């Protein structure tokens, strides 16, 4: 599976490589003048050379195997003269953070100028003082961040972080393997599908699904409701509903057709569909979970090169083709206008404005610990 996925990424990369110039030439109408000016400023300010070291998740650039050949990175190097050291250093939030915790606490650099933990983890980094504040004047494109993500409680003026990507958690399924369609979380948890489905080991996704099924929005959930959701998950698990409870590992089984239906991340599904067109994606009627990975500058990182990279990503003509290639949502205003008509119309990349997607509220440390513990007890032990 991973091979064909890789082929897909390469193909997508080629597309993106031709994309930007073409689209920039014919589709500038929708980008606001301030944004266009900002691009010019940004590239002028950062023609100083140097290197930006990026800690990234897999499948977040057009070409993971050879990042220098990814259009987004190659163009950045051309434009700014800043070299890019792109490393797939993040496999999951917890282990990535644990690996550098000691250095961060000691105030030492971690060897990266940019990292992309998920927003809830980024908020922890910020609260702990493990990040460098953004040199805001060097990131003029910051104004392009979409309104819904412009001022989270943990970084209200976005002076230390900006979203990298928007992720939807929904359901992927094979109609013929489960003899029918799935339209809701209730369908997914129907005993009829016992042993055929997988759910994610990310607490916010799985507990979030259960909360939505209980009719509670994760943004309003109280602690006892979250704990109740964990308990409900445990009951389902004890009844044998889940084939597996995994992180990224669900991709292989789903791609191979071993899993009938899966709680899934939007970008992954688009990747798998290239080889298995009968795989369907649905945002459940109760709603899906919305999350975002977040750009930060880890303590000790090179603020200048990092700012140049972040500013570059916030150019809609850069963001559009990149996110069309990787099949995640772009947090940059106007990015959709730099996509092909197909990309623009793809609900995996650009969900409808009124799509039922719900983010989590910020949890207190105590809530986080309690729910985490209940979730692990319910799903792992």
């Amino acid at each position, binding site marked *: 599976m991973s091979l064909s996925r890789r082929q897909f990424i390469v193909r997508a990369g080629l597309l993106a490589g031709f994309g930007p110039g073409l689209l920039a030439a014919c589709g500038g109408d929708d980008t606001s003048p301030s944004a266009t000016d900002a691009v010019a400023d940004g590239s002028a300010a950062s023609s100083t050379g140097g290197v930006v070291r990026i800690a990234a998740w897999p499948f977040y650039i057009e070409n993971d195997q050879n990042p220098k050949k990814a259009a987004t990175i190659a163009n950045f190097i051309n434009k700014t003269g800043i070299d890019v050291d792109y490393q797939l250093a993040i496999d999951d939030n917890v282990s990535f953070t644990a690996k550098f915790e000691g250095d961060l606490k000691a105030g030492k650099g971690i060897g990266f100028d940019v990292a992309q933990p998920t927003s809830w983890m980024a908020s922890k980094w910020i609260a702990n003082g493990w990040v460098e504040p953004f040199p805001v004047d060097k990131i003029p494109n910051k104004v392009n961040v979409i309104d819904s993500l412009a001022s989270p409680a943990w970084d209200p003026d976005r002076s230390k972080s900006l979203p990298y990507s928007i992720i939807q958690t929904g359901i992927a399924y094979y109609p013929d393997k489960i003899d029918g369609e799935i339209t809701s979380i209730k369908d997914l948890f129907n005993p009829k599908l016992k*042993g055929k489905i997988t759910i994610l080991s990310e607490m916010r996704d799985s507990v979030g699904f259960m909360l939505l099924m209980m009719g509670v929005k994760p943004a309003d959930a109280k602690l006892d409701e979250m704990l109740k959701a964990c308990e409900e998950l445990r009951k389902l*698990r004890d009844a044998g509903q889940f*084939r597996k409870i995994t992180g990224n*590992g669900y991709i292989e089984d789903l791609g191979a057709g*071993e899993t009938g239906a899966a709680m899934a991340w939007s970008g992954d599904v688009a990747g798998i569909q290239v080889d298995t067109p009968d795989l369907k994606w649905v945002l459940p009627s109760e709603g899906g979970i919305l999350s975002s990975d977040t750009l930060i500058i880890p303590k000790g990182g090179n603020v200048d090169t990092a700012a140049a990279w972040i500013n570059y990503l916030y150019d809609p003509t850069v963001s559009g083709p990149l996110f069309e290639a990787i099949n995640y949502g772009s947090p940059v205003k106007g990015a959709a206008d730099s996509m092909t008509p197909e990309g623009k119309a793809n609900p995996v990349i650009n969900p409808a404005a009124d799509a039922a997607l719900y983010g989590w509220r910020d949890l207190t440390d105590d809530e986080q610990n309690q729910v985490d*513990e209940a979730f692990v007890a319910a799903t792992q*032990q």
Partner: protein
Amino acid sequence: MAFGGGGGAKPVGDGIRPSNRWVPWMLLGPGLAWLFVFFVIPLFELGRGSLVRGGLSNYSNVFSDNGEVILRTFVYAFVATVLAVILGYPLAYFIAMKAGRFKTLLLAAVVLPFFVTYLIRTLAWKILLFGDGPVVGLLRWTGLLSRNGEVLNTHAAVIGALLYNFLPFMVLPIYVSLDKIDRRLLEAAPDLYADGRRTFFRVTLPLSLPGVFAGSLLTFIPSCGDFVNAELLGGDRQRMIGNIIEKNFLRENFRPQMSALSFVLMLLILGGVLLYARILGTEELA
């Protein structure tokens, strides 16, 4: 038992002059230092970590939280080890006693899978065992598996994979102990009117037991701690202790419990091994 025969080391201490008494310590030094830094200190840290937040209750919770997984882990490892003896012994016997000039070739064949990484070997099994793959197709066709039955995500898949991955660790020690048996003993047995079966059970088998013992440890202990096979070939119902630790050790909140679980795993293995050594009576090895 016949194991005393191989040992019988003569006391050599008398030969060392008092001024040279530090020589053995110097020879041991690098090894001891290595063990201290990379074994004793981490173990101490792990022990200390298992007692923060909750103290000894972390240990009592280990069984109530993970009882099923602990039991499953040891059953898997035990079954895999027993099967490895049953499969590995005849193979080692054949190579050592009957293979003649093909001995080297066969030994190479046993070791050959190691030239492919552990992960790829296990993933290859996964591909073979997929629901629309050849193995499941054949099993369904013969009726050994129901029409919707599957092999992946079953106990058999995980045990089979453990067996496959650790079998060479069983074969090689048994081979070595069989190979070094003095052939004159085997010739003497028929001279003393023992038939083939009797020769095997009274001479060959007892002399090869140290190999079986070593092979069992090399199979059982890593099997207990393994998580790759259960992760790739098993499902939610096939999790082993290794999977639980792997998933949660890095979560700060769970580190004390996971440290306690690691210690419990270690103690249970140690207990099992001591019991086994006692039953088999191998002073030489235990």
